[in-house]
């Protein structure tokens, strides 16, 4: 359990910081909650997708005549049924999307760019009829050479995925197309002088494999296209407004004609910040005139939805003998998958975000490859570059015979330091997280033979952005909180808690709901660790408007000035000494009189939240390596993180524990494996092995609270920072257990066994 168990006794807060049961909890433990695939409509058809079996192929022709003749088949769509969009960037949740690429990823046009790329879709009365039709759709391909390895894709003689793609970010526009979509650079100081001032220089090359978010719920939706052009979509996503916008763009529809209702979402981790099925289901519904349900299989999820990049990285560090880092040169090469847009930009910006270094140069390459288009995955890009940098820092600590935490403290960013990515840090809690692990008993616990202890740190920006929230007071004095952000990890309870705190209601009296796109104002999707911060800010402001309204109404009832009314413990109190006999008016009492005091009591706030505080995490990992098998056991794990203020500490701990578990999977087991034809060989949970309960120990979170003054309760984003350190924390622990630096993830038993044998 966490060090922060309960709200301090002297806290003026009654709800924030406690651990109430989530309002949607009973539905989740009884099986009543409706996830994407649980929704049905009368007369609904089954939609399925025909996918390319080739990693790279020209689509010569698609013949659907025989498929259309199958009894029960009602619609078949191909790229010809979608508008051929112009290239246009759209600013989404955490990153921009190119709408043309988004459309082409939903349905291949002219070329299939990866094994699993959709080439046609069918709707039929039964799954069997849809399957039969898929078999009968005849696609003629001209198979092309493919490339998946990021460095091979960068070479001048690699097969080119997009004839129109010319590298951006170069001084002169190149003459020939390339798979390098973009080169970006971040630099400060004088790198040569920095290395000249160094007593030691460490160089390393690191690689990570493409890994999938691995949410347990496959993508699913139901779409209904009415004859008057009004569309309805029910789907599992990280943002109903995102689904609305993307469907409108991909299909050439008016967004106002599309209403999207969010289903409960069975995990996303960034992977549900885009669309795959919804536009196809709408197109099939438009053609057939019936609602269409589409649900991916697990194989489809792996083959055709976003993993995050595999990468190759080079890190060179220079430092003085006493551990001051004088220079850092970092090169990052990230796979983007079939279309530009790897998270190398964020990987670059976060790479040195924990370090105060005078001279550095970071170069990032965004490289298209014949693999599924990457999607956001929890702190997109950051765990990858952190793996390289944190491994290099650990090597530096070993070389300098310095304690790895002391080395990090010596070079730590603090308030007032200009971050490597630009802004000046304010109110950050990085040093506090380092101190938290340094002073934790875990760091001093004895280590046995074949065991090692690794330390690593991580950073994530966290974002704010556009959010809307409404608060409605019911006639019995309870309240409803309405937001537009799907609740992936328990954010609904935090929304209710913040409203309850302001209103002075017990948490049980506040019901939070996540509304459809027609029932609440716009909100950016749930991502970037923004919901508790930004939407929480909107909720708090809406609740404060309610309180202001209630005070006004009470003042009217008492015939006093509004300033003479205080809101305390869920009731209006009269401060006017002339009205000493005025009894407090509770929320319930005021709600009962609302018709006579101005009508229904509601408030809605829309805002663009600024001032999201960045998140810093510092982790300790103990491993034991079995020299016989090369298997790594995680013995103990402690994770400290500055969260600003934990609104619901149990769900903050859950975010930390879950992020750590995903990072451990990334470090030890998970990877996309392709055969020589570029087909994914392990598209299932048997062969793509995510951590199971017996792989992990308890994961001890330490909640560090350095309040964010820009949030009404001090909150910072939580969900992403915890996945940043584990890759290197595990690798650093393995280094210290076996005495050899492992630089290629995952650290699978055969690799470790080979290193032990060669030792």
């Amino acid at each position, binding site marked *: 359990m966490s060090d922060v168990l309960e709200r301090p006794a002297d806290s003026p807060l009654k709800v924030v910081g406690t651990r109430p049961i989530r309002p949607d*909890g009973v539905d989740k433990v009884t099986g009543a909650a409706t996830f994407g695939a649980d929704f049905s409509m009368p007369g609904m058809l089954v939609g399925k997708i025909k996918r390319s079996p080739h990693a790279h192929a020209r689509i010569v022709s698609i013949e659907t005549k025989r498929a259309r003749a199958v009894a029960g088949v009602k619609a078949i769509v191909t790229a010809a049924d979608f508008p051929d969009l112009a290239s246009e960037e759209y600013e989404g949740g955490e990153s921009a999307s190119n709408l043309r690429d988004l459309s082409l990823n939903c349905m291949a046009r002219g070329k299939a760019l990866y094994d699993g790329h959709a080439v046609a879709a069918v709707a039929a009365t039964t799954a*069997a009829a849809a399957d039969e039709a898929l078999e009968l759709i005849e696609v003629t391909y001209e198979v092309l050479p493919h490339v998946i390895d990021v460095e091979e894709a960068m070479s001048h003689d690699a097969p080119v995925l997009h004839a129109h793609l010319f590298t951006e970010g170069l001084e002169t526009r190149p003459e020939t197309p390339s798979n390098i979509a973009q080169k970006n650079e971040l630099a400060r100081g004088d790198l040569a002088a920095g290395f000249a001032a160094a007593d030691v220089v460490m160089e390393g090359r690191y690689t990570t494999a493409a890994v999938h978010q*691995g949410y347990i719920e496959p993508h699913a939706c139901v779409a209904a296209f009415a004859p008057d052009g009004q569309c309805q979509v029910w789907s599992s996503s990280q943002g109903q407004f995102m689904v609305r916008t993307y469907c409108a763009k991909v299909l050439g529809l008016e967004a106002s004609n599309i209403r999207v209702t969010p289903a409960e979402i069975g995990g996303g981790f960034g992977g549900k910040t885009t669309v795959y099925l919804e536009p196809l289901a709408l197109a099939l519904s438009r053609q057939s005139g019936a609602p269409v349900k589409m649900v991916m299989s697990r194989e489809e999820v792996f083959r055709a939805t976003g993993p995050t990049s595999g990468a190759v990285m080079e890190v060179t560090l220079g430092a003085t003998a006493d551990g001051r880092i004088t220079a850092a040169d970092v090169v990052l090469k990230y796979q983007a998958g079939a279309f530009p847009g790897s998270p190398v930009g964020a990987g670059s910006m976060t790479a040195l975000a924990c370090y105060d270094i005078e001279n550095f140069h970071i170069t990032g390459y965004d490289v298209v490859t014949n693999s599924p288009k990457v999607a956001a995955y929890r702190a997109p890009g950051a765990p990858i570059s952190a793996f390289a940098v944190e491994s290099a820092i650990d090597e530096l600590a070993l070389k300098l015979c310095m304690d790895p935490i002391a080395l990090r403290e010596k070079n730590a960013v603090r308030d007032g330091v200009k971050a490597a990515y630009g802004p000046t840090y304010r109110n950050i809690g990085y040093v506090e997280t380092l101190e938290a692990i340094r002073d934790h008993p875990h760091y001093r616990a004895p280590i046995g033979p074949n065991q090692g202890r690794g330390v690593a740190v991580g950073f994530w920006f966290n974002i704010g952005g556009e959010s809307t929230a409404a608060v409605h007071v019911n006639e019995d004095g309870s309240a409803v909180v309405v937001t537009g952000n799907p609740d992936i990890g328990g954010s609904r309870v935090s929304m209710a808690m913040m409203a309850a705190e302001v209103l002075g209601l017990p948490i049980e009296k506040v019901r939070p709901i996540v509304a459809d796109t027609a029932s609440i104002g716009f909100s950016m999707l749930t991502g970037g660790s923004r919901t508790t911060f930004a939407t929480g800010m909107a909720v708090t402001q809406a609740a404060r408007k309610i309180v202001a309204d209630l005070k006004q109404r009470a003042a009217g009832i008492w015939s006093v000035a509004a300033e003479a009314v205080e809101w305390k413990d869920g009731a209006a109190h009269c401060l006017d000494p002339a009205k000493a006999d005025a009894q407090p008016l509770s929320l319930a009492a005021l709600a009962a009189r609302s018709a006579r005091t101005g009508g229904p009591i509601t408030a809605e706030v829309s805002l663009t939240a600024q001032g999201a505080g960045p998140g810093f995490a510092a982790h300790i990992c103990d491993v034991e390596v079995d020299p016989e098998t090369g298997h790594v056991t995680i013995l103990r794990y402690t994770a400290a993180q500055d969260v600003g203020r934990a609104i619901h500490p149990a769900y903050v701990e859950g*975010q930390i524990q*879950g992020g*750590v578990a995903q990072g451990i999977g990334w470090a030890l087991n998970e990877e996309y494996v392709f055969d020589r034809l570029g087909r994914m060989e392990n598209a299932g*949970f048997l062969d793509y092995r995510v951590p199971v309960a017996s792989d992990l120990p308890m994961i001890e979170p330490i909640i560090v609270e350095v309040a964010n003054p820009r949030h009404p309760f001090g909150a910072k984003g939580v969900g992403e920072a915890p996945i940043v350190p584990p890759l290197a924390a595990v690798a650093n622990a393995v280094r210290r257990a076996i005495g050899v630096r492992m630089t290629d993830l995952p650290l699978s038993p055969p690799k470790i066994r080979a290193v032990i044998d060669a030792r």
Partner: protein
Amino acid sequence: MIRRHVSATVNGDPVEFLSHPGATLLDALRDELSLTGSKEGCGSGDCGACSVIVDGRLICSCLMLAAEAEGRRIQTIEGMADGSALHPLQQKFLDHAALQCGFCTPGILMAAKALLEANPEPTETETRYWLAGNLCRCTGYDKIVRAVMDAAAEMRQVRV
């Protein structure tokens, strides 16, 4: 394609449905009986989100043909609570915040129920190995394991 008539007991009630030849028990529960609490995460028996108990034995309902359910007693997540009274496991999952997205939760609860029926006093290691067939991607399992062990302790108290 001829559909087969199947009679079984689900959560104590007799049910009948028509099964396609290739339909799994999970398909029948979800599509024929509208019991959508059991989830399909993989369809290959690797994730455990479809876990149900058939004649006292924990299984992945995606790996059993619906036609094989003939005459069997099936327990699903929808039958876990006693009316409006939650099972101790359900309550402990809420108390410990042992779920985030909640998608794996029905399967994990069924697996945990089978564990406590087989072993009322599981160690942490036994709990972890028993639940190793149920994937959770959100929680890191920490709070799940605590909730199961806490429920086991409470159920032992009640038994005494």
